[in-house]
Structure formats: C-alpha cells, structure tokens
C-alpha cells in the first residue's frame, strides 16, 4: 500500500472527509478504511481532472488489509456522513456505496485480483483513511461500466486513461467473468470495436 497524503480532492471533498473524520472521532466510532473508486479516485490520483458529485465506496478494509463488503455501510459512518452533508451543503448521498450496493454490485461479483495491494492511501485523521483505486483497476471498472451503459462518460474516462493493449485485455477478461450474462459478451466485443481495439476481440 502506498501512502499519498499530499493529494488534493475535488470540490470540497477534502473538507468533507476531514470533517467526517472529526465527526467519527466525536461519536466514538471505530476507524474506517474506505476503498474509493469513480471520479473522486480519478481526481485524487491525478489521472483525470473532472467534476464529480460523490465519493463512491467500492469496499471497506479492516486494519489487517482484508477487503470487506461495503453493503450496508456501517451506521456510524452513515450518521456522520449525513451530518457532514448538512454542514457543508452536500447531497445526502455524497458518500455512498453505489458501485457495490448489492448482489449485482462490484464487490459481491468480485473485484480485480490484487486491488488491495495497488491502493493509494490518504489519511484523513485518526478515524478515517481513504484508499483510492489504482489506474489499472480504474480501467477494469471503466471498461465494465462503459459496456454496461453502452458508452457514456465512462467511455470518455476510459479514453483519457489511455490503457495499453495488455491492460485492456486483462480488463476485458475480468469483465467477461464478472458479468456472464448473455448480452454482455457481444456488448464487450462491440465496444472494443468502437473503441478502436477490435483486433483484441479474438484474444479475450
């Protein structure tokens, strides 16, 4: 795990996470390690600079570095996040487990192997650490989301991440096992073709 404490978060999420730590400490809550993906992680790790509304939690992690299901989010974390939303005028779901929110979510279907070793950590205080997923895992999630949603801003994000052929192949293989439904594989092949990587289709 790599620490990275000089990263700047988009919008007022820097302030929000700092206050979240303060609220958790005041409430006597345990320490939480959040594994964050999406736009906040893209910004925080300097991969892409774009606006984002939410901090998307894909997993939690205990102090012995074991990933945990973030659904449901622990109540002390939910309570503290609501106070932060109220104090800073954020939307109530500014901190959410959307990507892993249920049986069809990323965590329960399986995260890319070794994701926990590639996290980039930021300490927000005694009660909160945030681990941002690595570019390699972003490529996995973005490819999956772009296929699932037939393009959209996920495709733009994937384009800006400029994956290598090998990275894209690995992501495609993971996405295929991740979603074994009938319609997903043709969608994946179509997307790779549209994305300019049609030559990789026979190798996935």
């Amino acid at each position, binding site marked *: 795990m790599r620490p990275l404490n000089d990263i700047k978060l988009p919008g*007022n999420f820097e*302030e929000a996470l*700092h*206050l979240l730590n*303060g*609220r958790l*400490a*005041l409430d006597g809550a345990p320490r939480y390690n959040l594994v964050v993906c999406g736009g906040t992680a893209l910004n925080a790790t300097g991969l892409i600079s774009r606006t984002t509304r939410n901090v998307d939690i894909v997993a939690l992690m205990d102090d012995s570095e074991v990933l945990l299901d973030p659904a449901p989010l622990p109540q002390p974390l939910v309570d503290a996040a609501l*106070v*932060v939303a*109220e*104090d*800073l*005028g954020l939307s109530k779901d500014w901190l959410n487990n959307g990507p892993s929110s249920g049986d069809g979510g990323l965590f329960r279907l399986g995260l890319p192997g070794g994701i926990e070793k590639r996290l980039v950590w930021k300490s927000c205080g005694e009660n909160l650490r945030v681990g941002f997923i690595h570019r390699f895992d972003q490529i996995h999630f973005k490819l999956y989301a772009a296929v699932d949603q037939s393009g959209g801003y996920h495709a733009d994000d994937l384009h800006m991440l400029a994956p290598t052929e090998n990275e894209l192949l690995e992501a495609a293989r993971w996405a295929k096992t991740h979603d074994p439904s009938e319609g997903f594989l043709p969608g994946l092949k179509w997307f790779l073709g549209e994305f300019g990587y049609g030559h990789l289709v026979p190798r996935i």
Partner: protein
Amino acid sequence: MDTSFLEFRAFILDHLLDLIWRQWCALGVSGQTTKEEHRVVDPEALLLLSLTICRYDARLFDEILDWLVANGAFLNVQRLRNLKKRFDFQSQAQLSAISELLMEKSNDPLKWKRLTAPRSPRNPEPLFFLKSGKPIPIPDENAPEFSVYGLLRGPIKLRGHARPFSTKGMPSLLLRLRALLGVNARCELLCLLAAAEEIHPSDVARQAGYSSRTVQNTLAEMARSGIVQVRSGNREKWYCLQSGVLDHLLKPEGSPTPWVNWAPLFRALEMLWIGVIDPKRQNLDPLTRSSELRRLGKEMRPLLAEAGLGRQLEDDRSFRGVEYSAVFIRNIKDILSQLNQ
C-alpha cells in the same frame, strides 16, 4: 486550546453568573450587583440553572443555600420536579443534595424529600470548579449531603445573611403571590394573565410548568371569582383579567407584567454551558468545532423559540462549514448581552 474559544467560554460564564447573581439578589440573596432586575423572577427555573452554573462560583452557590433555608417554604417542589423533567435540566445530583440539606434545616422535611433521587454509586467528582475549569481542591472533610450523591465539597457553613424576599417590586412578584395565595398554580396564572391581553390554557400550561388539566381546572375556578374573565370561541376558551381590579399588585406601572418564559431559556443556557465545557469539544479543529456548535445551536433553537428568542439564533443552513462558528458566537453574545441589560 484555541484562545478565542476560551474567551467565548469565559464570556458565557461571566454573563450567566451576572444574570444569576442579579436575579438571586433581587430575591434577597446577600450580594451587590451592578444592574437591577426588573422582570419577574421564576425561582424554580432560576434554581435549576443555578445548580449547574454556580458550580463555578462556590460563594454564590452557598448564598443560594442560605436563601433557601430562609425562603424555601415559598418554593414549589412539584413545579421544580415538573420543570426539571420537562426540560431535562441536568442538575439532579445537586438538587438531591440541597434537598437533603433542607430536610434537616426546614420545618417541612417531607416537602424536600420529594426532590431527592435514589443515591447512586457514581464516581465522586468535585462540586466546585474555578472559572478556568480546574476543580477546586477538596478538603479532607466532606459535606455528607453532597458526598452521598457523588459530589465532593467541604462542610457547609451557612452565613445566615439571606433576607426574606422583598414585599415590593416585580422580581419577587411570584413569591409574594405565593405568600398571599399559597404555593399553587394560581400564582403563575395571575402573572401570565397580567402579562398578556388574554391567555389560552394550553399555552399557559407550557409556560407555567403545570399540566394542562391543572391549568384548565384552575382557570375555570378562578373565573368563578369574576376577576378572571372567560371568552369562548371555536370550542376554545380564552381567559383575561378584569381590568383594574388587581393592577396595583400585578401592574403597578400600568404596563403588562414583565414575565419571561425563563424555564426553556434557562435550559437552553444550561445546554450551552454544558456544551462548551464538554471535554470532547475542546481542542477541535475549526471545521469540527463549527459542526459541533451547529449541533448545539440546533438543540437550543426550539427552547429559545419557546422563550420568544428563536430569531436570535440565525438559521445555520445559510452558513456552510467553518462560517457558522462566528455566527453562533455572535448570536450567543447578543442573547447574553440582551439578557443582562
């Protein structure tokens, strides 16, 4: 610790103690204050606030004990219980301890026994603190009335300087009415009737610290005198005083009786003080402190509104993050300054 927050705490304590000194002195406690109280004092609400705040002024605490020995017969124990329960005042241990003392010193020990709570084996703590927050050193010998409730202080030596409450002036009006009519709801009801053009029983019950049924029944009885008049409309009854009959007693200067709904206001101020001295709220970063002051403001706002001061605490939703600290501090300073005018 942040010096501006320490200054804010000191400002609160100084202003609360000024207000409490002023009100007790107006009722006969021995002491001098720079400003006189002109409003009707609510002795039960004042006692409940004093038992928390005067832990930071041992002299005033003991002057109040002295006053209670001399004038305690005119305190309404049932109303004390009602107000404590309804507003959740935090002074039960102190209240129990002074009741133990008054059981020994008064002619009516059973009356005070009703205020005691079961003795609990809580960890002993000092009763008194310096204004800085440091505990006052505890002597070897403790006052047993307090130590059985986990509060440590030296033996009580009452000076016997407290005077009977004044037979003139607005601050002692409620006590004078009790001396005249007995310790019962009629006294608060007369004050409230004289403070407004007309009153509704449910509003009065909230302000007077009695149950709605007690207030309704008592007002109905008082209306039989002809001095209290009743107006019916839309299934509701409104009560007022017949003009002129009791004005010399209740409105000597011609204007409505200066009644303040002290109980919710004092509970809000107790909440404020307990809130700012809470150990977990010291040494916070500015953002988290602002968040905590916002929580405190949210708890206080309905009580201040009940006392007619709701608008004095600005809507926190208009101020994000750290911005709110300065607003809260300014609002509280204004409220305390206004109360001490």
